[in-house]
């Protein structure tokens, strides 16, 4: 017990697993029989629901408390000793491949663990209220707890393979939860789409892991990264090899974190329940790719080509999906494209070597985007399931708490100074300009995307909460504020969205940038050992930094102003614009026809190929072998059956002939010898 509370680190993933077991038992043995018996009618809430509603958030809350205590204990150590590895049990031992199941708590994984358990706990509480009318209540929380377990395994694992287990686990839970309402065709299709898109990326991670093991002879983070300088010097780890490993890892990240070209699954994932969108598809799972890239920063820094690819993909995704967000009418889809766009920012930061900024934005984004999704869920809840913003409006007076909290989150994501999003986004913008990997072009794209972000987010707020009500009168009658289980998490997340950035105020604004100091032991030794100066100690003048900051704020304000003009002052104008450029509007409205393009370019081809293989190879070749074997036996039997004529004398004669032949053979053998 020399490590105090840190020896209980295993409890952090184990507690949600306990929730899975308990809720799973309830779901199987109480809820399933109940639902099968009731078959539709819903008279009174059965008692097990209360138990589930307690267990599910409680285990996650307890995991958060344990994680918090562990992190505090870690923080009390000196800065260079803040890596705690707990080996749980030997897992795989095959030849030179030794993979123990171990957990690693260091500044990076502690940020992730706190965000995952903290935001996860709030969303669990929220879910209790949001899913209160849901029939498969226990099943939902089993999946949600299982997700927490997988996600914590992912972020706390001490090696790539265990991380991959969590990586696949969250993918599975994502699939299960997107398709939670599986009776709905679109939901089950969206689940499959997410799973398949993720699998494409996972293939990259798998191959990258093979390469890592082949190169380093180990999969554990500490061993691999310790060997980097050595192998670099001895020439084993060439730039080409590092590029291959990192590009494959990044392929996995594009799948999990919804970047071009694999982002298409995330908007469709909105078919799942809204708290799921908040937890998995905004705050935690989709950031796993960013976490993995940041975790492997030592390798990425050796591959300048990969860094450029990451930065460019991030920047292009940021602006590309932001423009799609402008024309969406479904409130959750706007937020989904916004998530894709914000994840693009994080990858842009990774690509320019500013891993701290990426993780910082990951954290603040988890706060404000989870809040936005939960807020939209509260709106949808109030409107009995309506998601179309064209049928909202004037909701301010019906759902005041939701409005205020969501407005705070909108200000944060738009980058209004003082709020969390401002600090993290501005850090990324500054790094993309000033870092050795950065360039003014990247800055310009990111700043423009920030302006578009401000525009579509305020469009969302204006359409939803302001102006005349466009609601169905029947729906409007029932519009109500959500219960406390939903509004309390909203309020806490709102406070975090406002204040969460204050731990990373940059030096130029007189802050201490605690966040950067906290993460420095993870990223900076890397920078010293790497071929390139990482998070860029390049000295630009502070006036430039302040100037760029002011410029990006001005761009964001322009976006807000434009949204105000179009959706508050001249409300007829958007339709006129759409009419003036019908082709442009059509293309953007249909998400640049990317889904249709993939359908044509990839899916059609695969279907055709598969059909061809089925009809040519399977039906002709494989079936030919099987049927041929059967035909052969049948033909042989047809010949042989004639021997059985039914005449006993004939049989006796054959018997005699056989005996004579046998005896003759034996005699012949004995004579010859």
């Amino acid at each position, binding site marked *: 017990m020399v490590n105090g509370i840190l020896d209980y680190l295993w409890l952090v993933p184990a507690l949600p697993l306990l929730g899975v077991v308990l809720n799973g038992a309830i779901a199987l043995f109480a809820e399933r029989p109940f639902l099968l018996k009731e078959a539709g009618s819903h008279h009174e809430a059965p008692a097990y629901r209360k138990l589930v509603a307690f267990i599910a958030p409680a285990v996650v809350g307890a995991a958060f408390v344990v994680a918090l205590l562990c992190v505090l204990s870690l923080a009390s150590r000196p800065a260079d000793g803040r890596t705690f590895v707990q080996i749980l049990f030997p897992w795989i031992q095959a030849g030179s491949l030794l993979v123990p199941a171990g957990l690693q708590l260091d500044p990076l994984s502690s940020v992730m663990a706190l965000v995952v358990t903290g935001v996860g706990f709030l969303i669990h509480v929220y879910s209790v209220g949001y899913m209160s009318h849901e029939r498969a209540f226990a099943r939902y929380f089993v999946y949600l707890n299982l997700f927490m377990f997988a996600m914590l395994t992912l972020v706390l694992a001490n090696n790539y393979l265990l991380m991959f287990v969590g990586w696949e686990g969250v993918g599975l839970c994502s699939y299960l939860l997107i398709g939670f309402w599986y009776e709905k065709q679109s939901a089950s299709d969206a689940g499959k789409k997410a799973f398949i898109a993720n699998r494409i990326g996972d293939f990259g991670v798998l191959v990258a892991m093979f390469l890592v093991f082949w190169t380093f002879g180990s999969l554990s983070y500490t061993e691999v990264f310790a060997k980097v300088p050595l192998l670099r010097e001895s020439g084993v780890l060439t730039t080409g090899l590092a590029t291959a490993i990192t590009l494959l890892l990044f392929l996995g990240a594009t799948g999990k974190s919804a970047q071009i070209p694999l982002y298409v699954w995330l908007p469709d994932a909105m078919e799942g329940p809204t708290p799921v969108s908040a937890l998995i598809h905004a705050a935690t799972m989709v950031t796993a790719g960013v976490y993995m890239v940041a975790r492997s920063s030592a390798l990425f820094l050796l591959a300048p080509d990969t860094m450029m690819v990451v930065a460019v993909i991030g920047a292009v995704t940021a602006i590309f999906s932001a423009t799609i967000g402008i024309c969406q009418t479904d409130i959750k889809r706007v937020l989904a494209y916004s998530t894709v766009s914000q994840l693009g920012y994080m990858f842009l930061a990774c690509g320019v070597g500013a891993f701290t900024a990426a993780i910082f934005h990951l954290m603040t984004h988890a706060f404000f985007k989870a809040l936005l999704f939960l807020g939209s869920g509260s709106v949808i809840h109030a409107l009995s399931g309506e998601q179309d913003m064209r049928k909202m409006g004037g909701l301010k007076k019906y759902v005041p708490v939701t409005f205020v909290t969501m407005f705070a989150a909108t200000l944060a994501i738009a980058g209004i100074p003082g709020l969390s999003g401002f600090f993290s986004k501005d850090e990324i913008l500054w790094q993309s300009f000033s870092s050795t990997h950065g360039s003014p072009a990247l800055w310009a794209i990111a700043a423009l995307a920030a302006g578009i972000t401000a525009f579509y987010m305020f469009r969302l707020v204006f359409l939803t909460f302001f102006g005349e009500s466009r609601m169905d009168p029947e729906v409007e009658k029932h519009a109500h504020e959500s219960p406390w289980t939903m509004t309390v998490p909203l309020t806490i997340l709102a406070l975090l969205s406002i204040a969460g950035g204050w731990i990373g105020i940059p030096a130029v604004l007189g802050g201490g940038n605690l966040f950067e100091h906290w993460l420095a032991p993870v990223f900076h030794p890397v920078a010293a050992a790497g071929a390139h100066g990482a998070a860029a100690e390049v000295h630009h003048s502070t006036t430039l930094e302040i100037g760029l900051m002011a410029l990006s704020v001005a761009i964001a304000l322009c976006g807000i102003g434009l949204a105000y003009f179009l959706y508050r002052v001249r409300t007829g104008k958007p339709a006129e614009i759409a009419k003036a450029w019908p082709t442009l509007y059509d293309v953007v409205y249909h998400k640049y026809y990317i889904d249709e393009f993939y359908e044509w370019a990839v899916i059609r081809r695969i279907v055709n190929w598969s059909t061809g293989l089925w009809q040519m190879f399977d039906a002709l070749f494989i079936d030919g072998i099987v049927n041929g074997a059967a035909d052969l036996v049948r033909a042989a039997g047809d010949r042989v*059956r*004639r021997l*059985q*004529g*039914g*005449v*006993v*004398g004939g049989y*006796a*004669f054959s018997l*005699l002939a056989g005996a004579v032949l046998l005896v003759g053979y034996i005699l012949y053998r004995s004579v010859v010898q």
Partner: protein
Amino acid sequence: MIAPSAYLLLSAILFGIGVVGVVARKNVLIILMSVELMLNGVNVAFVAAGSYLGDAAGGVFAFMVMTVAAAEAAVGLALLIALYRLKETVDITELKVLKW
């Protein structure tokens, strides 16, 4: 003293007559009798060899075969009677239901 080969020759002749009876005759009763003849042909060989070699096993084996032959005759005749009651014939060429 009669040469041992004479006993074996007798044995072979009895066995051969039995074989021809089994293969050539159509009456099941005759076939059964022919089978008995074959068995007795073998018995002759057993006893002769036992006597020639001074080994009692030959005689013992002959008794063994007789016992089996008696059992076989009992079962065979019982089957024959059952067959006759069913088909009203003992002609083996008439009995060819068991074929494909």
